[in-house]
């Protein structure tokens, strides 16, 4: 096994040992799913058609935006980064290992919702499964890339909590998972389109291969990759 793969394997284990990621990637999203799934489907029976998608968008946003940035700050905001650098470990290692490990955890959480929702709440299964899982993978990647920006740009855990919430809350409120986005005032609807959750929800809910919702996610991803590269370069030079 090469060094990067070993690092990812160790990070995956550390994420399980650390309660933070377990809480934000599994406990809170699945608890939210259990409670809100029941409320949504009993108040609005038609919510069964999009329950898997809406609960997954909530879980992915929670896991990525609230769970991952603190782990990034633990590496890049402390002496760990110096320790890695002094021992020949490349600067990207911490970010890549956290990213891949978090991707696996969040995907597992998405699979649990996908498997449990039809059994517990009689939720409809997406008709185009390959498209659904492709969209889910892309949405997780985009959400994690935003989480990486937060973790690299903000150095203190206290400020990080605030910034994470500034992104997480509007993501959920304006994405259309709680109530249809078209019911929102135009300005809020447009603000909602800045967040990946809105496009993730649209993409997960559609059953055809329309590229219209893929494009915004790719634009956000492209921008995030550039910003992450700049931040990493800045950290390296400092």
């Amino acid at each position, binding site marked *: *096994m*090469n*060094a990067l793969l*070993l*690092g990812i394997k*160790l990070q995956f*284990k*550390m994420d399980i*040992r*650390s309660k933070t990621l377990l809480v934000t990637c599994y406990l809170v999203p699945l608890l939210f799913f259990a409670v809100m799934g029941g409320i949504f489907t009993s108040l609005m029976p038609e919510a069964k058609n999009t329950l898997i998608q809406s609960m997954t968008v909530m879980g992915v946003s929670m896991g990525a935006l609230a769970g991952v940035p603190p782990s990034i700050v*633990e*590496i890049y905001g*402390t*002496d*760990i980064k*110096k*320790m890695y*650098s*002094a*021992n*020949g*470990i490349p600067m990207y*290692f911490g970010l890549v290992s956290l990213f891949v490990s978090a991707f696996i955890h969040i995907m597992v959480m998405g699979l649990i919702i996908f498997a449990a929702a039809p059994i517990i709440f009689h939720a409809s299964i997406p008709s185009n499964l390959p498209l659904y899982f492709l969209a889910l993978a892309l949405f997780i990647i985009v959400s994690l890339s935003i989480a990486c920006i937060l973790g690299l740009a903000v150095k203190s855990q206290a400020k990080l909590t605030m910034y994470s919430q500034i992104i997480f809350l509007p993501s959920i409120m304006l994405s259309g998972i709680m109530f249809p986005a078209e019911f929102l005032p135009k300005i809020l609807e447009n603000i909602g389109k800045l967040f990946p959750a809105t496009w993730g929800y649209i993409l997960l809910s559609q059953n055809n291969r329309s590229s219209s919702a893929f494009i915004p996610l790719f634009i956000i991803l492209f921008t995030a990759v550039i910003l992450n590269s700049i931040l990493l370069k800045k950290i390296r030079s400092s």
Partner: protein
Amino acid sequence: MSYAIEITDLKKSYGNTEVLKGISFHVKQGEIFGILGINGAGKTTTLECIEGFRKYTSGTIKVKGKIGIQLQSASLPSYIKVKEAVQLFTKWKKADTDTSLLYALGINDLEKKLYTELSTGQKRRLHLALALIGNPDVLFLDEPTAGLDVEGRISLHNEIRKLKEKGTTIILASHDMSEVETLCNRIAILNDGVISFLGTTGELASKVGKRYMIKILSEDGEKEYSTGSIADSLLKILEEYKRKNITILDLKINRGTLEQHFIDIAKG
């Protein structure tokens, strides 16, 4: 003579502030070389330039062989186990797996412990073990015993001596004079970006032997005087007290310590 490190006219500026003003020294293979200085003297900048962490303005730095670095302030992820950290660093350094390091540093029984569960001393030992992976020819130690208790210091000093016996060249940055006196063959004392003393600890000790500390307790309080010529100085000091009509309550004369001499040199 074969040198492990050669530094020639090293200069480093941050903006308009010149932190290193052209320092030159060499380190022989297999010796322990101490870099001393008070805070802000340029000690860490010098080390970081040699280690390759920091770009320097001008001069030349030559380091022969593989290097290992133990940082003063270092850390690892809280939930990594000791064994996993060793595995990870071994992989990245493309070195052979060698658990004898853990035995040598007395941390073999901590393999399954999480980093967050280790004491300060155990963490220091682990950092040293990680720096030693791949058998570096030159080892940089920055304040290696800071925060350790007496037992931990003695134990770590013994490990450093063993490394020297194996032929490892060691650069030790410290402001602890007793540590440097115990371990180092030669030292450089940095003061305001220049080397104000370069030589063996023996040479430093011979200078110290010629200095005295005169401590006078009077009705005005306690005062200390450092001097190389005890008779002349004592006479002048006593005359001064007599002229001012100040009563002397107690008077002590001690030979200066290495630490006092370091302070004299380091503060210019």
